[in-house]
């Protein structure tokens, strides 16, 4: 039987994968993708809690799903801005590698 714990563990593992990606990879685009993984891990937890904590009328608590909606929206905006920055960086430095971009001024 699948319990809340299962979802939380899976969510935690996904978060860890994303975290490891941010820590290990030096490619800006991969780092951005890993960030998305972490955000989605949080989403999974939120939805799991939403299903777990029912409203008095017996429906899921939709507050959490509204949060997920916001997270997805903000993530989309973040990716757009992030990728725009990466493209701008690439035009100047011809690289997307974080170790090559160490000076603040470019």
């Amino acid at each position, binding site marked *: 039987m*699948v*319990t*809340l*714990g299962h*979802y*939380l*563990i*899976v969510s*935690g593992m*996904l*978060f*860890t*994968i*994303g*975290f*490891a*990606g941010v*820590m*290990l990879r*030096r*490619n800006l*685009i*991969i780092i951005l993708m*890993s960030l*998305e*993984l972490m955000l*989605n891990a949080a*989403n*999974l937890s939120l*939805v*799991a809690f*939403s*299903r*777990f904590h*029912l409203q008095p*009328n*017996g*429906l*899921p608590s*939709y507050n959490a*799903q*509204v949060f997920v*909606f*916001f997270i*997805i*929206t*903000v993530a*989309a*905006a973040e*990716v*757009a801005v992030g*990728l*725009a*920055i*990466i*493209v*701008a960086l690439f*035009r100047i430095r011809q690289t*997307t*590698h974080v170790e090559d971009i160490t000076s603040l001024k470019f």
Partner: protein
Amino acid sequence: MPPLLFWIFALLMLVFGAAVVINRNPVASALSLVVSFLGLAALFMSLDAYFVGIIQVLVYAGAIMVLFLFIIMLLDLRAEKLRKINWLASAGGLLVALALLMQIFYVVGNLHAAQEKFPPLVGSTTDDVRNIGLLLFDNYNAPFQIVGILVLVATVGVVLLSKREVR
């Protein structure tokens, strides 16, 4: 949802999530992320959150990842594959990540509610779009407006950032 399907989709999501990090080719990473998100959307649906699941596919798989793919292809990142791996830093990062995972296991293991089953739904979830919409426009109207402004600002920012300097 049958446990079997849960495990299939969870495994799909985790394996391809790991593939995102492990793959040296950015295109492969991006495509792995798409599959991972599809698994995640399935998990959302297993939690009776159809709207969120579909939005996940629509926004993430359909829009954001296309954007990623687009940028990767346009930037021609093939040279990145040749870089050497800093094994020391990698080991350190992995250690920190493992520590985090241990912590999560510990917390979830000690969480009482985590051992409980999901309570059965009383009402029908088929109207979750309506319910979420009502909640969004009633209780969360102000945040919704703010997110709208945020998206607008992001749009302007992106246009500014990606504009080539005209001389």
